[in-house]
C-alpha cells in the first residue's frame, strides 16, 4: 500500500470545494532518460492549488534530481534557522544500476521533500518553491546550471561586508585563539540531543534494512524448500506424495507473501527511518549555520567597538580621514546589526522548529510503526491461514496401516 503524502496546508483533499487554501504536490512517473554516464531520471511534478500566487489550479512540470537539489540549496540559504527537509542521497554509483527499488525509494523521498516544503508555514511562501513548481523546463535548466559550484550573486553588500570582515579580522587581532561559541546551556543540551539522536536513528535504520533482507532470505529459503519437497513427494506414493506436493506448493505461496512484505517494509518502515536520519543531519547543518551566524555577530560586534575607538581618536586629532572612517563605521554598524538580526532570527526560528520537528517525527514514526505492525500482522496472518489450510489435507493422509 503506497503512502501518498499529499499533505496540504489544511487537512482537506484538493478536490473538496475549498475556501481553505491548499497546496499539494505529487512527484510521480519516474522515467529514465539519456544514456550511459549521462543517464538520469525525470519525474512528473504535479501541483494542485488554489493559492493566488500560482498560475491555475493544476500544473505539471518535468523535473530531475538536480532541480530538487537547486530548490533545497536556495531554501537553505534563504531560510536560515529552519530545518530544511532532507533530500535522498546523491549516490553516483547506484544511479548507474537504476534498480527499480532505487527509483521507487528516491521518488518517494522526493515526493515527501516537496510536500514538506509546501506545508511548512514559512517555506511555502518561498519564490523558489513557486519557480520550482511552475517554471518551464528550459528556465529550470538555466537556473540549475547557474548553481553549479560557486555561490552566485547575492543581493547586496551586507553579507559581502560580513565576509570581508571575516577575512580581514584574524583571531590574533581579536585576541582569541579558539572559535567563538554560544554558552547557552539549554542549546548545548539540544545539540547534544541531536548528535546522540543521529546515532540512535542510524542504528535503528541499519537494523530495519537488515530486516528487509531477512524477509527476502526467508522467502527464498521457503521457496527452495517447497521445490525440494515437491521433488521428494515425487519419490513417495499415494497420500504422502500428495502431502509433500501440497506442502511444497503452500511453501512457495508463503514465500511470495514474504517477498511482498519485504518491499512494503522497505518503503514504509526502512525509508521513513532513513528519512529521519537525514532530517537529523539537516538539523546539524542548521546548527553549523547558527554557529557561523553567531560567530559573525560576535566578530562584527568586536569590530564595531574597535572602529568606534578608532573613530573617536580620529575625531580628536581632526584627521582628514574622519569622513572616510565615519562612512566605514556606518556600513559596519549596519552590517553588525544585520548579523545580529540574522542570528536572532535563527534562534527564534530554531526554537519553533524544534517543536515542529518533534511533532512531525512523532507523526511520521507513528505512521511508520503502524504500517510496520500492520504489515507484520498481515504477513503472520497470511502464514497462519496458508498453513492452516493444509491441516485437514494432512490429516486426511493417514498412513496405510492406521
Amino acid at each position: 500500500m503506497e503512502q501518498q503524502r499529499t499533505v496540504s496546508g489544511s487537512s482537506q483533499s484538493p478536490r473538496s470545494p475549498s475556501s481553505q487554501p491548499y497546496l499539494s504536490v505529487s512527484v510521480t512517473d519516474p522515467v529514465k532518460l539519456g544514456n550511459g554516464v549521462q543517464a538520469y531520471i525525470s519525474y512528473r511534478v504535479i501541483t494542485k492549488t488554489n493559492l493566488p500566487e500560482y498560475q491555475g489550479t493544476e500544473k505539471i512540470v518535468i523535473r530531475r534530481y538536480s532541480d530538487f537539489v537547486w530548490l533545497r540549496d536556495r531554501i537553505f540559504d534563504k531560510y536560515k534557522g529552519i530545518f530544511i527537509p532532507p533530500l535522498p542521497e546523491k549516490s553516483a554509483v547506484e544511479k548507474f544500476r537504476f534498480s527499480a527499488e532505487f527509483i521507487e525509494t528516491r521518488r518517494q523521498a522526493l515526493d515527501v521533500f516537496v510536500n514538506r516544503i509546501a506545508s511548512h508555514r514559512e517555506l511555502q511562501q518561498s519564490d523558489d518553491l513557486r519557480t520550482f513548481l511552475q517554471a518551464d523546463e528550459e528556465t529550470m535548466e538555466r537556473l540549475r546550471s547557474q548553481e553549479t559550484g560557486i555561490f552566485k550573486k547575492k543581493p547586496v553588500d551586507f553579507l559581502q561586508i560580513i565576509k570581508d570582515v571575516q577575512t580581514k579580522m584574524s583571531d590574533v587581532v581579536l585576541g582569541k585563539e579558539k572559535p567563538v561559541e554560544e554558552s547557552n546551556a539549554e542549546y548545548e543540551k539540544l545539540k547534544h540531543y541531536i548528535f546522540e539522536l543521529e546515532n540512535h536513528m542510524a542504528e535503528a535504520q541499519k537494523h530495519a534494512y537488515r530486516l528487509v533482507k531477512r524477509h527476502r532470505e526467508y522467502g527464498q529459503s521457503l521457496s527452495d524448500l517447497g521445490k525440494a519437497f515437491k521433488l521428494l513427494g515425487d519419490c513417495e506414493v499415494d497420500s504422502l506424495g500428495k502431502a509433500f506436493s501440497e506442502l511444497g506448493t503452500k511453501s512457495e505461496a508463503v514465500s511470495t507473501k514474504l517477498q511482498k512484505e519485504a518491499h512494503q517494509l522497505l518503503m514504509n518502515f526502512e525509508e521513513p527511518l532513513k528519512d529521519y536520519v537525514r532530517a537529523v543531519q539537516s538539523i546539524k547543518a542548521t546548527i553549523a549555520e547558527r554557529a557561523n551566524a553567531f560567530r559573525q555577530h560576535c566578530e562584527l560586534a568586536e569590530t564595531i567597538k574597535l572602529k568606534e575607538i578608532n573613530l573617536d581618536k580620529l575625531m580628536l586629532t581632526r584627521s582628514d580621514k574622519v569622513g572616510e572612517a565615519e562612512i566605514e563605521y556606518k556600513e559596519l554598524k549596519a552590517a553588525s546589526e544585520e548579523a545580529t538580526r540574522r542570528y536572532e532570527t535563527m534562534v527564534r526560528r530554531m526554537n519553533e522548529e524544534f517543536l515542529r520537528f518533534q511533532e512531525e517525527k512523532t507523526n511520521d514514526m507513528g505512521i511508520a510503526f503502524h504500517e510496520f505492525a500492520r504489515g507484520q500482522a498481515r504477513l503472520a496472518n497470511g502464514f497462519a491461514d496458508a498453513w492452516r489450510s493444509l491441516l485437514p489435507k494432512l490429516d486426511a493422509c493417514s498412513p496405510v496401516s492406521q
Partner: protein
Amino acid sequence: MMDSENQGFEEAHLYASKEEMENLVLDDPLNDTKSHSNYRSAMSSLLSSSAASAAPVVVTPADSDPLLAPPPFSDFHHTGGGGGAAADSSYLDPPSYADVIFSPFDADTAAEFNGVESPSQRSDRSASFSRSSSSAAASGAEHIKITVSNPQKEQETTNSLVPGGNTYVTYLITTRTNVPDFGGSEFSVRRRFRDVVTLSDRLAEAYRGFFVPPRPDKSVVESQVMQKQEFVEQRRVALEKYLRRLADHPVIRKSDELKVFLQVQGKLPLPTTTDVASRMLDGAVKLPKQLFSESSVVAPHEVVQPAKGGRDLLRLFKELKQSVANDWGGSKPPLVEEDKEFMEKKEKMHELEQQLSHASQQAESLVKAQQDMGETLGELGLAFIKLTKFENEEAACDAQRVRAADTKGLATAAVKASRFYRELNAQTVKHLDTLHDYLGLMLAVNSAFSDRSSALLTVQTLLSDLASLQSRAEKLEVASSKIFGGDKSRIRKLEELQETIRVTEDAKSVSIREYERIKENNRNELERFDMERQADFLNMLKGFVLNQVGYAEKISNVWSKVAEDTSGYARESS
C-alpha cells in the same frame, strides 16, 4: 526463562542485552508471556524434582523412535544426566500444538500447562501423532530406554608410547527396560567411543541385509577444531541417538551384541575390529600358500562374510575378477539378480536419497533464515528500546514522550516476535531433523543392499570356481583313463580335486543360503522402512505445519496489538 536454555542460537552479547530487555519489557505483561513462563517453570520443576517418579507416567512406547516428530516427551525424563535438565527444557513441546487445538491465549490453556497433568496430556497427543507401531511395539509393554551421560576423562593404563599416557573419554550408558532377556530392569556401564565402533562393526557382520542404523562418525577433524566440551557434548548426543535407534530396531534390539554392550561391566567382550593394515598383512602372509597349493578353498563358514574386509586375499581377488567379468565379460554370470521388484526398489531408494539430500540442505537454509529473522528482529527491538530510553531521558516536549511510548510498544513487540521466531525455529529443527535422520539411514539401506550384492558375488564366484574345477576334473579323468593301470599321480590329483569340489559345493550351498537369507532380510526391512518412513514423514509434515500455524498466530497477535495502538496515525494520514 530463556536464560537457562541451552539453545545454540543465542549469542553471548544478546544474552546480556536480553536481560535488559526482560527488565524493560516485562512491566506490561502480555497474557502469553505469563502463560509461557508459567508453563516453562512448571516444566522445569517437573524435570528437576520428580524426574524419577514421573517416568512411569509417560508412555515411552517402544515405537517412540527419536526419528518421530514429538521426541520431546522421551527427553523429559533424563535420569542423572547433569547437563541434561537444562538442555531438555529447550526440547519442550511448545504450546503451539495446544494452541491450534485450543485458542492461543486461553486462560484455560495457560492453566493446563501448569501442574503435573500436562505430561500425560502431551503424551496422549503424542500417541495420536505417533506412527502405527510395528508388532513389537503394538504389545505396548516392551520398552528399552537408553540414556548416555556423564562423560569422563580416563587414562590409558597399558602400553602407551606417549609418556603420561593417552586419555580418552568414557560415557555412562544407562538402560532401563522391562524386556526379560536382559535379566534386570536398570543397569549402567561405562563405554568409550571405540567400543561403539566395535559394536557397530559386529552388528554389521551379524546382521547382513538389515538396515542397521549407522553409528556416529569418528570425525577426527571436528575433534581438533571444536572445543573439547562442545565436541564431547555433541558426541554424547549422537551416541544416545544411535543407541536408541538400535533399541528401536525390532530385530537388533534382541541381539546379543547389543545386550552385551549395554550390560557387561568392564571391558567390552566383543571381538575388536583389527585395522585394515593388519588384516591385509595377515592376508598377505597367507597368500603365497594359497597360490602355490593346488587346492585353495574357501571354507564354507567363511562365505557367510563378504570377501572384502577379510583376510583371504585370494578370495578377494577371485571375487574381484568375477565382478569384472560380470560387468565386462561377454557371457552372462552364472546367477543374476532377478528380482525386478527389488531392482525397481533399489532405483527408488537411490532417487529418494538424492531428493532427501536436497531437501535436507534446503531445510538447513530455512532454519538459518528463521534464525536470522529472529535475531534481526531482536536487534531491532533492542535498538528501539535504547531509543525509547534516550527520548524519555531527554524529553523536552510531549511529542517526544508520545513518540517514546510508541517506540516502546514497537520495541516490545519486536522482542516478543523475535523470541517466537527462535522458538519456532527450535521446533522446526526438531521436525525437519527427520530429513537428516533418514538421510543417515540411507547409509544403512545402501549397506544392506551391498550386503546383498557382495553375497551374490560370492555365489557367482563360487559357481565359476566350481565350473572350472569340474572341467579340470573332467580333463584329468579323460587323460588318466587313457593310461592303462592308471596314472598314480593323476589319480591322486583327481581325488584331491574331487575333494576340493565337494568342499566348494558345500561352500556354494552355504553361500546361496546366505544370499537368500540376505534377500529375505532386505525384503522385510524394505517393507518396514517404507512403512516407518511414511509415518515419520507424515508426522514431520504435520508437526512442521502445526508449528508454523501456532507461532504465526502468536506473532500475529503481537503485531495486531501494536497496529491497534497506533491506529490513530493511520486515520490522520489518509
